[in-house]
């Protein structure tokens, strides 16, 4: 965690000197990979926002920071769990509340001379904080865990007009995570996602 904060601070200092940068906020749709017994449905209840700055004025490489949040859930119909000396019957809901923080390094490809389309690809490295929850009637069980996050990502930025900073973005990403929950028997909680959102770009 200490190294993560240090790295973020380092990138933060870097972007202060950067010329071109953009801020984005996006709706993030994710599907969990594996651990499907706990949650398996695609979730549109998520978002991402971040700030990215190009290393130098003419550079195609940007460094940035991304914050993300997603909620996965699954309804489990009534089931009886037998144990030594008894049994319990209930229906229940499994939830995973996922919050991620990553620093990213992206390469933006040049497409023509229009300076309106910017396809990009890169990777984000950071940590995610997962809250695994099980709700049944008025009762609940919760386990909170940290994990390492690696997020390869590819997308495209699009400025609405050449002279204005407002634009749109779309991207796909794969979130590899080491996050696990012993209580709920979940390991390496990873997902793939698609995001679509708005950007505000400052180019000088």
């Amino acid at each position: 965690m200490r190294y993560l904060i240090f790295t973020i601070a380092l990138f933060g200092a870097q972007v202060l000197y950067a010329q071109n940068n953009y801020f984005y906020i996006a709706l993030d749709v994710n599907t969990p990979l594996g651990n499907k017994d706990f949650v398996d449905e695609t979730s549109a209840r998520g978002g991402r926002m971040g700030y990215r700055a190009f290393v130098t004025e003419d550079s195609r490489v940007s460094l940035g920071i991304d914050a993300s949040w997603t909620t996965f859930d699954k309804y489990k119909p009534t089931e009886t769990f037998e144990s030594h000396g008894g049994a319990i019957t209930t229906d229940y809901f499994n939830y995973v509340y996922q919050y991620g923080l990553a620093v990213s390094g992206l390469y933006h490809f040049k497409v023509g001379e229009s300076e309106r389309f910017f396809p990009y690809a890169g990777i984000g490295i950071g940590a995610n904080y997962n809250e695994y929850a099980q709700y049944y009637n008025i009762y609940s069980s919760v386990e909170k865990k940290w994990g390492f996050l690696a997020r390869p990502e590819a997308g495209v930025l699009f400025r609405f007009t050449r002279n204005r900073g407002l634009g749109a973005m779309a991207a796909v990403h794969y979130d590899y995570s080491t996050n696990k929950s012993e209580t709920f028997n979940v390991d390496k909680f990873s997902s793939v996602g698609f995001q679509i959102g708005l950007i505000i770009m400052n180019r000088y």
Partner: protein
Amino acid sequence: MRQLLVCATVLVALWSCHPEPDDYDLLDQMVVSTNYDTTVYIGGNSIGTYKTYALPTDTIGYVSNTDRNDTIRTSPQYDLPRKVLQTVEANMNKLGYTRVGFHESPDIGVNVYAVKDLNLFQQVVYPNYYYSGYYGYGGYYYYPYVQTYAYNTGSLVVEFVDLKNAAANQKYEVIWNAYMGDLFNAVNQLDQSIEAVNQAFVQSPYLKVQE
């Protein structure tokens, strides 16, 4: 236009950061937990060797850390106790037990009662204070205060008390119980209670009387 677009996107992206299941979906079915005395069951002296039981006709017990009165017992229109007891009786008979009076030496005394807990949570709130100028001048300070949150929770409980071996054991032992909750937040208290009692017996097949 730009601000509007950004605001709309922020709202869409931030919606439901920490959503939870809908109350109705959570509370439309009770959690049924049953437990038996493993020493009685596993020791070869199965619960199923008990043959007779005694059960009240129209009254269930009520245990609460708050009010003495409760609509479950006091409302004349409310027939939850009678219906629950009838459901227990039907299940007991189906398992092969014979109902007898309290003075006819029953093997099992069946207790049925509701437990109501008032849960209190207290939190100290420190209001933000406004301060300007020199200390003590032009500043406003509000004393912290305690905020109290309260909610009622409760369970419907069915218990088997071992009367057959009470003299030998020199105490009344509970050999089987069922906790069903939450009783006080149920969407349909009566129907869900009956459903829960039936489920408690379904998940306890070892209760069947041995021929």
